[in-house]
């Protein structure tokens, strides 16, 4: 029963969460746990790669809203990358591009962290 999977990897001080499958009200708690884990370990430089995410509902978007403040308070950020057009459309409808950095490619997002901005 795995409609949704998260793969965590770390390199160069940046934590990448790769999301796969369907992120809805049923699976959003899994993502919450993953963020909670990162925050507990004081890992605040986070890139979320959406390459293999097929679907997202507002329950999934709500998770990003729940953690972004805490992450930024600690001089980190949650940067979003590799969204399909379908997934990006949902973020766009809710106005996320104004408040979140969204990149086409994961490397670009990691590069922004390395530039020392956040």
């Amino acid at each position, binding site marked *: 029963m795995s409609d949704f999977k998260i793969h965590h990897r770390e390199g160069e001080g940046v934590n990448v969460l790769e999301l796969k499958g369907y992120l*809805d*009200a049923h699976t959003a708690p899994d993502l919450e746990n993953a963020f909670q884990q990162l925050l507990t370990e004081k890992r605040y430089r986070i890139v979320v790669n959406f390459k293999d995410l097929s679907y997202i*509902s*507002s*329950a999934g978007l709500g998770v990003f809203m729940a953690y972004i403040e805490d992450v930024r308070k600690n001089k980190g950020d949650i940067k979003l990358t590799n969204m399909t057009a379908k997934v990006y459309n949902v973020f766009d409808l*809710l106005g996320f591009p104004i408040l979140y950095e969204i990149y086409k490619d994961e490397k670009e997002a990691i590069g922004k962290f390395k530039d020392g901005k956040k």
Partner: protein
Amino acid sequence: MVEMAKKISKTVLSRTDQLLEVRDFVSDAARQFGFSEEDIANIVLAVDEACTNIIKHAYQYAPDKKIFIAILRNNGTFEVRIKDNGKIFDPEALKAPDLKRNLSHHRRGGLGVYLMRKLMDKVEYNFEAGNNNEVSLVKFLSKKHDSPKK
């Protein structure tokens, strides 16, 4: 001659693990009706949001309640009616979400209702005595093709 609306229906339990099944049910019906992939995705998401709201707000995560979904297809109109017997949920009380304000207050409410209105051509709520709540989500098949692009 009045063409009878073609109706199909499905009942699921008020649990989030049923959402995938609901999405498949709606997706198949919308595809058969002739919608584009983009429209199908929008309808499916709107129905997911409506069912999620029922699970969270109307039934407050009670797992043994029922959600009744009916799809009516008539001419160019595709209507999804979703009923529950839970607490009345007043969508009008929700303003469009203010993302910045929500962020600073750790609030996530209202996104689903806002999305439903954005994604569908018509969204209506009916509340009857005896806790019969219904939301109707309508998408017109030809609207997009007929409208000139802005």
